[in-house]
């Protein structure tokens, strides 16, 4: 079923959990569609006026339909309780220890993704909206010592393989949505709020960040890139980016 659905490749640790819910639900749909469909076609043929000139008022009297309904409800309950709720709550709780993770801030704006790395000191430099300019899209205060080794990258999000990533997500102007299809990550970037999300990439590769919320005229081209790199490659990239 998974191949049939044609979802993007799974490239994060939790992707399979999410896909499992999708797959199970589509099995449920397939079974129901087949059952209902067969019944529907049968009745249309069997009970057409030509074949059944006089209707039977009572219609169906067998009680099996109740069992079918109960079975549908039961499958939904199982998928909800044992698959969906755990999969979702693992996304919004159970954050890894920041020391073991790669931490970044992502600030969305019309129509770009700004990625802010804290650098070697693991501390984000201060930001201030009054410092925002075209060279300094997130308004980073370079005078803050913590900001000295910070890296700000526009539309390019690099992450190391196999380590959890924590993203603090927000927006400067309107609502955007930070979508990483291959990671099964999507989260609205809402101005005035910071939302955290986390995931662990399990495959290297170069993919795209997809804006998933109508954010204006350039929404369709609000595309960023993200690369899952081998840890050494990532460290090298970050070091180079930090040197002015």
């Amino acid at each position, binding site marked *: 079923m998974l191949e049939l659905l*044609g*979802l*993007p490749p799974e490239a994060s640790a939790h992707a399979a*959990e*999410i896909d499992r*819910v*999708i797959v199970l*639900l589509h099995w449920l*749909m397939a079974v*129901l*569609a087949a059952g*209902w469909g067969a*019944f*529907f076609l049968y*009745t249309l043929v069997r*009970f*057409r*006026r030509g074949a*059944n000139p006089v*209707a*039977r*008022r009572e*219609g169906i009297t067998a009680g099996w*339909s109740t069992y079918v*309904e109960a079975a549908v*409800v039961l499958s*939904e309950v199982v998928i909800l309780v044992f698959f*969906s*709720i755990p999969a*979702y709550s693992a*996304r919004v*709780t159970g954050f890894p220890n920041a020391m073991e993770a790669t931490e970044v801030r992502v600030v969305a704006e019309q129509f770009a993704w700004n990625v802010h790395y804290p650098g070697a000191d693991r501390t984000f430099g201060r930001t201030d*909206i009054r410092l*925002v300019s*075209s060279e300094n899209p997130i308004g980073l205060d370079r005078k803050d010592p913590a900001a000295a080794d910070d890296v700000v990258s526009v539309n390019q999000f690099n992450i190391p393989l196999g380590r959890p990533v924590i993203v603090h997500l927000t927006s*400067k*102007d*309107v609502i955007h*949505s930070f*979508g990483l*299809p*291959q990671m099964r990550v*999507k*989260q609205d970037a*809402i*101005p005035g*709020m910071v*939302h955290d999300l986390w995931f662990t990439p399990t495959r290297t590769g170069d993919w*795209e960040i*997809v*804006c*998933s*919320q*109508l954010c*204006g*005229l350039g*929404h*369709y*081209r609000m*595309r960023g890139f993200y690369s899952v790199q081998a840890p050494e490659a990532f460290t090298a990239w970050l070091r180079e980016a930090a040197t002015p």
Partner: protein
Amino acid sequence: MPTFFRRYIFSLDHKVIGVQYALTSLVFLLFGFTLMLLMRWQLAYPGQPLPFIGGLFGVANAPGGVMLPEFYNQLGAMHGTVMVFLGVVPLAVGGFGNYVMPLQIGASDMAFPKLNMASYWLYFLGGVTMLASFVLPGGAANSGWTAYPPLSYFATIGQTVWLGGMLFLILSSLLGSVNFITTIVQLRAPGLTWFRLPFFVWGQLVTAFLLLLAFPALQAAALLQAMDRIFGTSFFMPSGLVYGGKVVAGAGGGNPLLWQHLFWFLAHPEVYVLILPAMGIVVEIMTANTRKPIWGYRLMVGSAIFLGFMSFLVWAHHMFLTGMGTSISTFFQTTTMIISIPSVIILSALFLSLYGGSIRFNTPMLFALAFLPMFGIGGLTGLPLGLASSDIALHDTYYVIGHFHYVVAPGTIFALFAGVYYWYPKVTGRLMNETLGKIHFAGSFVFINGIFMPMFIQGLAGMNRRLYDGGAQYAHVKDVLHWNTFMSWSAWGLGLFQLFFIVNVFLSLRTGKPAGSNPWQATTLDWAATSSPPLAHGNFASAPVVHRGPYDYSVPGTREDFIPQHVEHADGEAR
């Protein structure tokens, strides 16, 4: 003598008002559909000039015939708005509800004929306001039909006009729903007890309650957004925004999610407003054309009421990705699964009703039958969107568009077509042409699936909605991109086949077979106790009294295979 104006323009008669609603909303449906046909060009052939008509839209919208993102976003927002608020609901409720419901309950008119007229004209005004916004500088609203702030805050003046138009529509719907409920509760014919009501009337009743209680939330939201846009308040505007490189002035401190809560508090029940009247229509047509009652009538009524009630408790499943914690998301996932149960029950009951019937495949029945699997697909594909975990992957993709269009287009719209074919003889005294009707059905059925089925494929692959170039930029969807042309040609094909419908509507006025009062041999009062068309004044020659349930078809021991609701019980008749 009533003047021409009183009789046709400012009529107080529910039948005339119903027809006014129906015609106006059909025009709006065509208009909303045309907007989409334009968009489908840009999706299939991004950046290429629109053929033939490209020059008509002016340099602000389509210089050299090439549609700009500005225009695309207007078309998208207005397609959604027009279809939902000016097309489907006014046709299903204002049109069918107004015309049929009083007849089915044996009433001589609505409880408040003047309010009824006011509803229609407020609706008309709302529609004109929405249409007029296209000619404003910057054009119509372009922030989606959902109008999320802050995007809608920064939008052009068209957004303010959109809010004004919504205000008219909300007032219209408020007057209408008060009138509908009062009429159903108070004006039922003697003997027409609650469980003798045709299911159509139940559908209208639950719908009216949803409109009555859910729309005020949008009214409040629209008021607050208008304040933000006109008086510079910051209800939906947080502090510290930088827009277009400049710090946004204003007090700040607002919350953009507040809008979403209020909006979806309306817009989720609105989905059931779109679907319940359609189910009502389908039940009427199915019972008449299977010659047997509906399976589990009381169960269906109970499910419809429960559905209406639950629809107030699921709104935030549209907001799973706005940063919801475990407990709130669990609550809304659970309520969403609960609300799927009555929907499954209703759909199963409709399927089961076919069993044992004697099915006549006329045009209204074909459309009604097609409703079942189409609504089934729409409903089932809602499940992955209603669970927060799978929604992470599918939110804002074409899967969503596919899901709700299966509910509202091949679902509700087909039911509405079925209703037009079914009640046309009541309104005009003549049947619509069956051959044209069947061609219309076959073409529509094929092409509409051609549009919407590939949306699931695209959505699963991760193609997003509301993309001006149909996703052409993105590498991960390049394998499913080619569907865009297929879907667009399907859409234009669908458009072509609507000509058969339009021609049929006009042609049959003159040339249709005279229908007689009850061409479908139906049992409900609208057919059984009136002429076609019904008496202009007061509907019924003599006030009907009801003696039985709505669907006494094929009662054993009787000569005819149907007994109208107002016929008394005979000896020998099985009860």
